[in-house]
């Protein structure tokens, strides 16, 4: 019998089974479109009569807007509409108002690149020329871009008079969030230690660095109905925000997600979409907006930069007795929760009797941060894993042994509150220890780095529909943009559950009017949550098909089972009938009651946390501080790898983003508060020749919360590289590195300073 989904059932989803489709490596369904140039991305859409809009952005890091005069632009031939913050609806939620104020500055500009006015014209050239005719009078204010400096009483205040919840006394007005986690007696814990190391670390802000700039096309007729085509991680999020900002109802706005050229969290919010919609409303014409690369860097969200103090005590045999971290993050000019996530994840890999983390979010004159792959965790875990490494080094202990000795496992009270269920950290550490990489010899100027990593993984609101076509094929309709191959894994789970060949299934990502609500593609949730809903939708369809077979056979529906893609009687008592295939049931569906479909809607839970361990060998040139990655191996618990190729891909891609963060990527601001490296030339993401092959070892410790045992895999991979590379470099260079990126000038200065 098909297992019914029971509301509120906890941890009871997973059933061990043999898979036919899941775990294989078929070609992805959208692959041919993407190798032939047919796939349509954000900037590839056009509409008849389309206008092009561009944005006037602040040249100042912090200024009051005294006045805006757009008359010159409006008078220009070819200019069809101009919008400012006055063209948008005031929001009741502070979070939404912040997002809107980031899309279009209201009263004040908070950072270099902050949008002020948008102009729609018959060409980009005319729109840009019109921007030059707009007169903005600024009252320039002092600015601050550094997190520690912004916490000082002398720092300029960004949001005068705004009160933030739960901020302890003694913090200045730029502190917009404060959080504390942990358990146990810290004094007692540190007293038990044979050695205590306390260090301070800094990490620079990095950008998600998706290769596709933000792009959107919006239309809106005089009837007040709009459409948006956009590269986004969530069409429903775009619909809800853009409709609210422009003041129309959700039902009147249909949003279609294009193929998306990378997101990594950076496309989980809006920048251009409400602006394009407002311009379309005003002009009555379709409006296209595409960011330049410079705009992407200056005005779309990088992640936070951080400044952290860590203190860890250890006994001489390697037991951690206490861990403490104070994390100060800045994520630009508006509140965010990234520091909180840092504080929750910092010590998550460890089973600790005494642990305490405190986190502050501080407002600065930088762009509003956006989520970036396991937001908050990489920089927090970097600091903890660096100190653990140094403790091992000082005590002459093996870093993997020490991690095994202290590893969180089932029953461990986590550093952020709940007790862990089945988790894969020990298995992952053991796999790393047993791997040939860990025993391989190192050459001169080389060092080996190790780090653990953790991410929660999330689930959330999900809707899936499944139509059984009369020819025996299946259409799966889901609502989450496919960033890294999710249509493949969703199709595979549908085929698995239905018991039919994969080629019979086609999965599409539907627009906001064609499927129920879905949270954005974030939190490593899609293969887990959409997969779960797909399996449940398949089960609903199967139930329907079993009912049809029962009616045809004249037996009870309860007496029909679904085996290998066909209805069969549950046993001889039920009757003696040959299996009735999905194709047969589908072909007769008109005669047996009409079309067959299944659907499932849920706010899913039970995503299942995931751990990873990374090993890296680096070589540091002692004369230049240049770091070469010689060898890299990723070990990660995937719960169950639906399509192993794309699980490996997530692990490899996350590792390389983390390597970039560790070595060269950073937002560089001048004294004037302006971003100095708003391009791929000087914002240096890793290139092919910087890297070796990235070996990926998948572990499968089933997640009890998913029918197939799936855990999210997208984010964890970016967490360990920062510390793994930093530990490797510290060993190779013979000096402990405490600031990211470890760019060559920084490494060389450290080497020379240590002499």
């Amino acid at each position, binding site marked *: 019998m098909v297992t019914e989904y029971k509301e509120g059932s906890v941890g009871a989803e997973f059933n061990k089974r043999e898979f036919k489709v899941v775990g294989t490596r078929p070609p992805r369904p959208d692959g041919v479109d993407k190798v032939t*140039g047919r796939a349509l991305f954000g900037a590839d859409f056009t509409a008849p009569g389309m206008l092009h809009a561009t944005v006037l952005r602040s040249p100042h890091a912090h200024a009051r807007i005294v006045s805006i005069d757009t008359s010159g632009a409006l008078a220009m031939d070819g200019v069809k509409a101009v919008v400012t913050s006055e063209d948008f609806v005031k929001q009741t939620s502070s979070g939404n108002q912040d997002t809107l104020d980031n899309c279009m500055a209201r009263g004040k500009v908070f950072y270099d690149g902050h949008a002020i006015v948008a102009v729609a014209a018959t060409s980009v050239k005319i729109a840009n020329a019109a921007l030059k005719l707009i007169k903005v009078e600024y009252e320039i204010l002092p600015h601050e871009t550094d997190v520690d400096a912004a916490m000082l009483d002398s720092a300029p205040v960004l949001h005068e008079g705004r009160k933030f919840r739960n901020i302890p006394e003694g913090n200045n007005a730029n502190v917009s969030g404060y959080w504390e986690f942990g358990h146990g007696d810290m004094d007692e814990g540190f007293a038990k230690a044979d050695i205590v190391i306390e260090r301070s670390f800094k990490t620079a802000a990095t950008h998600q660095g998706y*290769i596709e700039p933000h792009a959107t096309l919006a239309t809106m007729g005089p009837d007040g109905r709009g459409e948006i085509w956009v590269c986004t991680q969530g069409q429903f999020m775009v619909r809800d925000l853009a409709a609210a900002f422009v003041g129309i109802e959700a039902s009147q706005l249909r949003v279609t997600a294009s193929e998306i050229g990378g997101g990594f969290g950076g496309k989980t919010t809006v920048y251009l979409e409400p602006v394009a919609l407002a311009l379309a409303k005003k002009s009555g014409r379709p409006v296209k907006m595409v960011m330049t690369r410079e705009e992407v860097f200056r005005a779309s969200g990088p992640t936070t930069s951080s400044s952290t103090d860590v203190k860890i005590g250890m006994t001489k045999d390697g037991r951690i007795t206490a861990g403490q971290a104070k994390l100060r993050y800045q994520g630009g000019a508006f509140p965010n929760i990234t520091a909180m996530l840092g504080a929750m994840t910092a010590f998550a890999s460890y089973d600790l009797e005494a642990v305490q983390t405190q986190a502050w979010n501080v407002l600065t004159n930088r762009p509003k941060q956006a989520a970036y792959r396991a937001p908050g965790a990489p920089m927090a875990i970097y600091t903890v894993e660096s100190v653990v490494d140094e403790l091992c080094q000082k005590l002459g202990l093996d870093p993997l042994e020490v991690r095994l000795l202290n590893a969180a496992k089932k029953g461990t009270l986590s550093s952020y509150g709940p007790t862990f269920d089945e988790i894969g950290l020990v298995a992952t550490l053991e796999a790393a220890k047993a791997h040939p990489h860990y025993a391989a010899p190192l050459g001169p100027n080389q060092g080996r780095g190790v780090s653990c990593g953790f991410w929660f993984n999330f689930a959330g609101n999900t809707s899936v529909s499944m139509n059984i076509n009369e020819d025996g094929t299946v259409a799966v309709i889901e609502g989450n943009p496919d960033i890294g191959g999710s249509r493949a894994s969703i199709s595979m789970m549908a085929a698995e559950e239905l018991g039919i060949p994969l080629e019979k299934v086609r999965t599409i990502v539907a627009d906001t009017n064609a499927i129920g609500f879905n949270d954005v593609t974030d939190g490593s949730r899609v293969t887990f949550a959409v997969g779960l809903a797909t399996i449940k939708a398949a089960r609903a369809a199967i139930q329907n098909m079993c009912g049809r077979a029962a009616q045809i056979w004249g037996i009870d529906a309860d007496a029909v089972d679904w085996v290998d893609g066909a209805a069969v009687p549950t046993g001889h008592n039920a009757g003696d009938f040959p299996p009735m295939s999905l194709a047969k049931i589908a072909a007769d569906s008109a005669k047996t009651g009409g079309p067959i479909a299944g659907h499932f809607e849920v706010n899913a839970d039970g995503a299942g946390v995931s751990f990873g361990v990374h090993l890296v060998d680096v070589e540091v040139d002692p004369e230049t501080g240049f770091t070469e990655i010689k060898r890299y191996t990723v070990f990660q618990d995937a719960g169950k790898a639906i399509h192993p190729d794309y699980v*490996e891909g997530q692990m*490899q891609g996350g590792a390389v983003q983390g390597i970039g963060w560790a070595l060269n990527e950073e937002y560089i601001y001048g004294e004037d508060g302006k971003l100095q490296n708003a*391009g791929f030339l000087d914002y240096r993401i890793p290139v092919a020749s910087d890297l070796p092959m990235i070996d990926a070892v998948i572990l499968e410790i089933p997640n009890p919360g998913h029918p197939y045992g799936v855990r999210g895999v997208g984010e964890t991979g970016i967490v360990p590289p920062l510390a793994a590379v930093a530990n490797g470099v510290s060993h190779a260079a013979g000096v402990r590195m405490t600031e990211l990126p470890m760019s060559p000038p920084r490494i060389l200065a450290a080497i020379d300073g240590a002499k």
Partner: protein
Amino acid sequence: MSKIHVSTSINGDAVEYLCEPEETLLDVLRNRVGLTGAKEGCGSGDCGACSVALDGRLVCSCLVLAAEAEGKTVSTVEGIAEGENLHVLQQKLLDHAALQCGICTPGILIASKALLEKNPDPTETEVRYWLAGNLCRCTGYDKIIRAVMDAAAEMRGA
């Protein structure tokens, strides 16, 4: 300002277009010719997403003026497959799962094809350096490099 008339050959087809003097070949391919396979990732020659072959030479189409294409041949990702048959490189990228989001894929294909035409038996290091101007943020390059090496082997008949 009058537009410039350009006669060129794109993927083997004779194409004529009118362009502004400052328009790039990438702009014209995408906005006037209707070939959106080449992507703009940066507009400054740093990402390679707009790669095309110009008279057989690998270039960034964002760094070529559309007017310069007069009398030349242009090859884009749309011209790599022959009818229904994918090129070996296209098939190998699919087989090796060498794309995630796919935005860099057209540029990777054009660049790798140019490499294998010049050097049918490249080492891993040669492939990595040749493709250094094709940024990929999703894959960490591993599967891309494997796919190109495998395609090279197959094209050599190895």
